[in-house]
Every structure is written in C-alpha cells, then in structure tokens.
C-alpha cells in the first residue's frame, strides 16, 4: 500500500514536474507567468492524437510531432502575443494578461471548432503493467517518467553549459544590453518558447495517452503552476522538486486522509511553504542590492 502510493505519487508528480518546468522556463526568462502553457499542452495532446490516428503514424513519430507542434505553437504565441509587448518594454502584468488571453482563446477555439468531444488515444504502448514488489505501475508511466527526466536534465545542461543557454539567461535580465553584445533577441526568445513549447508538447502527449485529449485539459496545468511556486518560481530544479512533492502529497493525502479534501491540502501546503520560505523550496534567496 505504502509502496503503491509512493509509486503512484511519483508518477503523477513526474507529469506535474514536466509541465512546471516548461512554465518555469518562460518565467525565468521573461519574468511573467505564461498561463498559455496549459493551452499549448492541450494542443500538443490533440496533435499527438491526430498524428497517431488520422495520419496513422507510429508512436515515436507522434511524440516528435507533438513536440514540434508545441514548439511551433509556442513560438507563434510569442511572436503574436508577447513580442509586441516586449518591444514596448511593457510591464510583466501585461504579459500575464496577454497570456491569459491566449489561453482563453485557444481553449475556447478548440471548444468551438472540435467541440467538447474527448479523444482517447489508441493503446500504443499496450496496457501492460510492471510489478515492483506488490505494487504496480503502468508501462506508460515508467516511460513518461524516464522521458521527462531526460528532457529536464537536457534542458538544464543546455541552459548552463552552452552559449545559447547563457544568452537566454542574459536576455532574462536585460534584452537591450544583450542585443548590444550580439545576441539576437527575437531568435533567443523564440528559442525559449520553442523549448518550452516542445516540453509542453511532450507533456501533452503523455497526458493525452494517460487520460485523453479534450479542450479544458490545460487546466491541469494549474497544478503545475502551484508546483512551480512551491518549488520556487523561475527555478527549474525547483519546478521538478515542487512537482514531485505535490504529486506525492496529493496521493498520500488521498490515500491516508481523504481524497475529497486533497486540493485543500495542496493549497494549504502552498500557503505554508510560502509562509516559511517566501521564495519557495528552491528559490534562491539572493539579497537584493540597491
């Protein structure tokens, strides 16, 4: 029971983490909460579904397809909804509102065109389960967990070990000056949204396979936002830890306390973490200088 709960919690937390990382990435660069992340995840799930069923492609193709679709969508979002604000040096609040607009727009566009229909993925990975000492975990969960870890680690290395990564971090502080040193801002920000979008596509296809694709599935990302805050906004390791902590917390509360008041618990956890550590679990506390 305990083991099963832990495993289930880990599987759920892994998905939260993957979603939270993409969101945190954009936050760390443009310093705003990209509420459209959830919509990109949703469309990634749809993309994966249609590639698998309508195009009859194989799973790896669908996986790549949703990542590409997510990246393209992320970049398009940025171009149309954020870049004009960026050029104007708008306040972060305006970005947040624009992001909210994108989220509402995309979600309801799908709703208005494809309808409320739920699309269920074909069972590409089969329904087999892996048993670990009395507990079991779906093969899909294992796969998702492994894939997410690779993606997140890769992203971290990219940001801290490469020139483009450094450019991204420089842009996150001052784009004008970064451009003075030759960094091509539009391209760099595009890259960020491409990466975040690809992560969203990845989350989308896993979510779709695990559950299904439907217009409002982007709201699951709310959990990921909460996870990102618990972990420390803008910190990628924080997003991972926040996601896993939240997944485990929810599962344990469901099993040992009550599944109904689970969300009250996660919210209280959020508030408690912020009370004790105003910057989240991993948000590094740098004493600001004036």
């Amino acid at each position, binding site marked *: 029971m305990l083991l099963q709960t832990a495993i289930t919690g880990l599987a759920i937390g892994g998905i939260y983490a993957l979603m939270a990382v993409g969101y945190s990435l954009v936050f760390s660069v443009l310093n705003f909460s990209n509420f459209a992340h959830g919509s990109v995840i949703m469309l990634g799930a749809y993309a994966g579904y249609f590639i698998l069923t309508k195009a009859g492609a194989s799973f790896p193709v669908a996986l790549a397809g949703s990542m590409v679709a997510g990246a393209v969508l992320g970049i398009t979002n940025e171009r149309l909804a954020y870049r004009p604000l960026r050029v104007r040096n708008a306040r972060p609040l305006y970005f947040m509102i624009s992001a909210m607009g994108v989220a509402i727009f995309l979600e309801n566009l799908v709703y208005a065109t494809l309808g409320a229909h739920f699309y269920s993925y074909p069972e590409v990975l089969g329904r087999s389960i892996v048993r670990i000492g009395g507990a079991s975990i779906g093969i899909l969960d294992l796969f998702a967990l492994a894939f997410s870890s690779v993606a997140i680690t890769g992203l971290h290395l990219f940001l801290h070990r490469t020139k483009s990564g450094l*450019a991204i971090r420089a842009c996150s502080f001052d784009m*004008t*000056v*970064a451009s*003075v040193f*030759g960094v091509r801002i539009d391209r760099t920000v595009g890259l960020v949204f491409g990466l975040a979008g690809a992560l969203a596509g990845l989350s989308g296809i896993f979510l779709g396979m695990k559950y299904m694709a439907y217009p409002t599935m982007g709201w699951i990302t709310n959990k990921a936002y909460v996870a990102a805050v618990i972990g420390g906004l803008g910190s990628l390791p924080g997003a991972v830890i926040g996601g896993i902590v939240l997944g485990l917390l929810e599962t344990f509360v469901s099993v040992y306390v009550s599944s109904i008041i689970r969300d009250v618990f996660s919210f209280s956890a959020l508030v408690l973490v912020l009370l004790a550590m105003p910057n989240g679990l991993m948000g590094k506390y740098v004493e600001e200088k004036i």
Partner: protein
Amino acid sequence: MLTVDSLSVFYGRIRALDGVSVSVNEGEIVSIIGPNGAGKSTLLWTIMGVNKPSGGSLWWKGERLLPVPSWVAARGISMVPERRRLFDNLTVRENLLIGAYLRKWDASVKKDMETVFRLFPILRERLGQYAGTLSGGEQQMLAIGRAMMGRPALLLFDEPSLGLAPALASEVFRAIQRIREEGTTCLLAEQNAYKALEMADRAYVMNVGRVAIQGSGKEVLANPEVRAAYLGIKAGAS
C-alpha cells in the same frame, strides 16, 4: 571609420537629437561632452542600433549602419553603457563571456579574460559573484571588461567614470588610453569634461540635441566657453 550624418532622434514627441553630425577616425579617442540631457547617451544608443533614428544616416567603413543592435555588434562595435547595465543575474565570469558572445569560445577568450584581469584585478576575485551584488565601481570595471571581451574595433563609452572613486576614475581613463593603444578606437561621452578633453584627439560639445562646438581635444579644452560652462573655471582663474 564611423560617420554620423545630421542625425535626428525622437522619444515620442521629444526631440533628443537634432541634426547631429559626428565622425570618428580609426585609432582616435573622440570625446563628447555636454550637460545633462544634451543627448550624448541617445547618440551612443543610436549608433548601437537601439534607438531608431528618424532622420539622418550612420555610416561604418563606407557601409550604412542598420538600426539593429546585434547587427551593429557583429560589425565590431561595442559599448560600455551608462550606469553599466550589467546582467545582475549572471556571475562576473558569465558577464565577461557574454561580451565574447560573437566570438568562438576558445583559448583566445581565456587570454582576453586575463587581459581584463590585469587591468582590473578585483574582478578575478569576484569571478563567481553575481554582478548585481558588486559595488558600483566593481560594476563599472566589469562593464568595461565585458565590452573589451568582444575585441571591438570601436568601443563606445558612456560616462565610464560615473560613480568611480577618483583613483579608479584615473585608472579607467588610463585603461581607455591603453585600450586605444592596443588598436581599439574609442568614442567617449563624459561628464568629467577635463579628463575627457585632455585625452581626446578630437572632441564635440553637445547641447540640447545639437553639436555646439567641435575641434581637437586641445582646442576645445582651451575654449573659454567650455572652460566656463563645463570645467567650472571662470575666465581668468587658473
């Protein structure tokens, strides 16, 4: 090398530059002085491509400069911005590396970093510290170091002595001379008019968006108007 031809720049409806013409020849130190709000910073930002001109033109080695910062940077122009504008969230080392963004990161970058440390030894000690937590002077040194890392052909300095301790300000001016000696042309906007004029080959005095006086450094330094208005030296005093 750089020719600015009757440049006009607006901020909304405010005219910040009004038909400014400035030229910089290879190997020179050219200084621009002028009171607050004269438009010195605006001029430098416009050369960098950050501000978009609404009239006039900019020429670089016979080629027209586009108002695109990354493109300008790729032509070998770099800048020490007013108030430093460091990447506070990056370490000293990373700030220096960003300066070398357009270069291949190889051994020569390491070597240039050593050059910077020779000029400003304190930076070596602060290598892992976030730039945002450096003192003002340390930040200024880092800003200069960062610009040097790109091995620019032309380096724009916007008030490099701002907020520097006197000894250090002299140090920075010496550094600028040394940078010029190593082959980098320097365009310098300064409030410390005396220093700026003293070391300049040529100088411009700007006022409310126009060039008011120009000439060789010595000429401008000797100009009684300049002495009265910018050096705080009343006629007759020594």
